[in-house]
């Protein structure tokens, strides 16, 4: 069953007088329950591809399908509903809402989804413990380290058990020990809940957890290999 399907998508950004092809006739299909790592040098198109899959950015051409829905033709409201119900995001930076505490950040998506307060509380407590942030529930982002903030963001992305998690450099601000813990958590979610992960990373350690490595260059896929074959 296909979780994500991109067909011949192109995206060009204008940088001054120069047009930069962030995605260049890229096609990819990710099956439900896959654990995919996107690798590329900076500017290779990883983030643009994640944004296109998440409906944050609409490609100039081509088709993007998520959960059998045509993302690139959806309205803003439909995209919001899709993201809310199906996708967990972990961004590279600016991940948290600064006026909310760690717990409130984690509960934010559930609150928008309309999850009852008691259930939110129970789930947020469990996930914050799982990412090693017990005792820090009432701290605001400014009172936490970069790594702690990133773990809160990860907790928020996975707390409502989305079918698809899109993570852009999720371990960028984490020490190796915390990175390993996080990836173990991702792996567990992937294996036990069949959550699909698409992770853009430079981190070799993260790549070690992936079941499929997709190497990109200049907006194209240049290598797509299952990890057990690498």
């Amino acid at each position, binding site marked *: 069953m296909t979780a994500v399907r991109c067909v011949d998508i192109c995206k060009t950004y204008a940088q001054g007088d120069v047009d930069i092809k962030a995605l260049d006739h890229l096609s990819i299909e990710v099956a439900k329950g896959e654990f995919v790592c996107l690798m590329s040098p900076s500017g290779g198109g990883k983030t643009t591809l994640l944004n296109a899959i998440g409906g944050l950015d609409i490609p100039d051409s081509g088709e993007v399908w998520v959960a059998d829905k045509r993302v690139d033709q959806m309205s803003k*409201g439909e995209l919001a509903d899709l993201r809310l119900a199906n996708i967990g995001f972990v*961004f590279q930076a*600016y991940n948290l*809402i*600064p006026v*909310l505490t760690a717990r409130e950040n984690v509960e934010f998506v559930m609150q928008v989804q309309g999850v009852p307060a008691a259930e939110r509380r129970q789930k947020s407590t469990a996930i914050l413990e799982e990412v090693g942030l017990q005792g820090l529930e009432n701290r605001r982002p400014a009172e936490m380290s970069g790594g702690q903030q990133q773990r809160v963001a990860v907790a928020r992305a996975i707390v409502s058990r989305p079918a698809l998690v899109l993570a852009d450099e999720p371990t960028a601000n984490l020490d190796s020990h915390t990175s390993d813990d996080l990836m173990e958590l991702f792996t567990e979610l992937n294996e036990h809940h069949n959550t699909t992960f698409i992770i853009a990373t430079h981190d070799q350690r993260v790549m070690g957890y992936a079941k499929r490595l997709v190497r990109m260059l200049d907006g194209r896929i240049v290598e797509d290999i299952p990890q057990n074959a690498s």
Partner: protein
Amino acid sequence: MRIAPVLGRLAWRYLWRNHRRTIIMLSAISIGAWAMMFMTALTRGMVDQMISDGISVIPGHVQIHHPGYLDDPSIANRLPYTDAELARRFDGAGFVAWASRVRVPAVITSERESRGVTLLGIDPAAERAFSFVDYDAVDGRFLESVDDSGIVIGAKLAGTLETEVGKRVVLMTQDPENEIADRGFRVVGLFHANIESYEDSFVFVGKRTAQDLLHIGDTTTEAVFVGDDYRNVEPVYDIVSAAVDDTVRVSRWTEIDTYLGTMLKTMDGFMLIWVVVIFLALSFGLVNTLVMAVFERVREIGLMLALGMKPAMILGQILIESMLLLGIGLLIGDVLAYATVKPLESGIDISIVAQGMEMFGASSMLYPALYLKDVILANVVVLILGFFASLSPAWRASRYEPVEAITKVG
């Protein structure tokens, strides 16, 4: 509606994220709201005083006259009813007070000076409840009955005529046959009025005395009816209209004293304009605050959109923020207005500008009046206009593209 608590929490937290800016804006809104209501209370108090003085001097709330009297207020145009007929029609009709009067132009002469005045032949007992003259504060005494042979004049007129209590004056007017009707009166009292010009314009004699002077039997020129509220005279008007026939004209006070009537209507419009003008000054600060608040959290708005918030929710969040800011500011302004107007309700002495105020028919004491309806008007107008002023920054915030907003550089 399930999203309302989270939008409210976000709005509240963002409001206090930059607490200095919020406090400054709250201060501006509070002071603006206070200024709106304080000025409204002063103006309302002044107008109330002018109207209530004006009504008590001349019109009452409703009057009846001969149809030609208002155009030609001579004794020939007097009411077709006798005092007995008036009493039969109106006694026990449910008015706060009513009285019939003789009111004609006259000339008063002392041994030194003459002045044109309005002669009021009254029943002092019937008019005590609503007269502009405080009977107990008269120098000498006020009239005691309809047959009283004395005359009560204003203290200022007494100065002009160079007369005083105990001296005699001559009152001269015309009877229905256009013959001179004159008579000597002993000054029995000097009255004082809030508005000095009244002391110069009116003289009081007993109603029966005036009727005898004018040879009009027991008829009068007008009957005056007073209800509960000068702003709502329709109940009184209806009772009076039902009790008379078409040989008399029934008039509301606003028709008799068009200046006062127009002033009341104008004042309501003025209040609204005043509130809107103050709001316009405030709106620049409000919109600027919201624009800045949105601008400094573009990335966070992008993040919320990326996490699944709909544009309408972002719009709602900014509007809630604006309404919270206005609501708190208005509340503080309301409390300030109440706290400053309440101690002044016993009156502000503005006698230093009394003569200037008299030009507008206002007295030398100002009694601020903060009405609930004015407070509600100011609050509702500010909230409604504030809502619309906030739409622009809120709309802009909701239109951000998530990816552009998230990657926006500070």
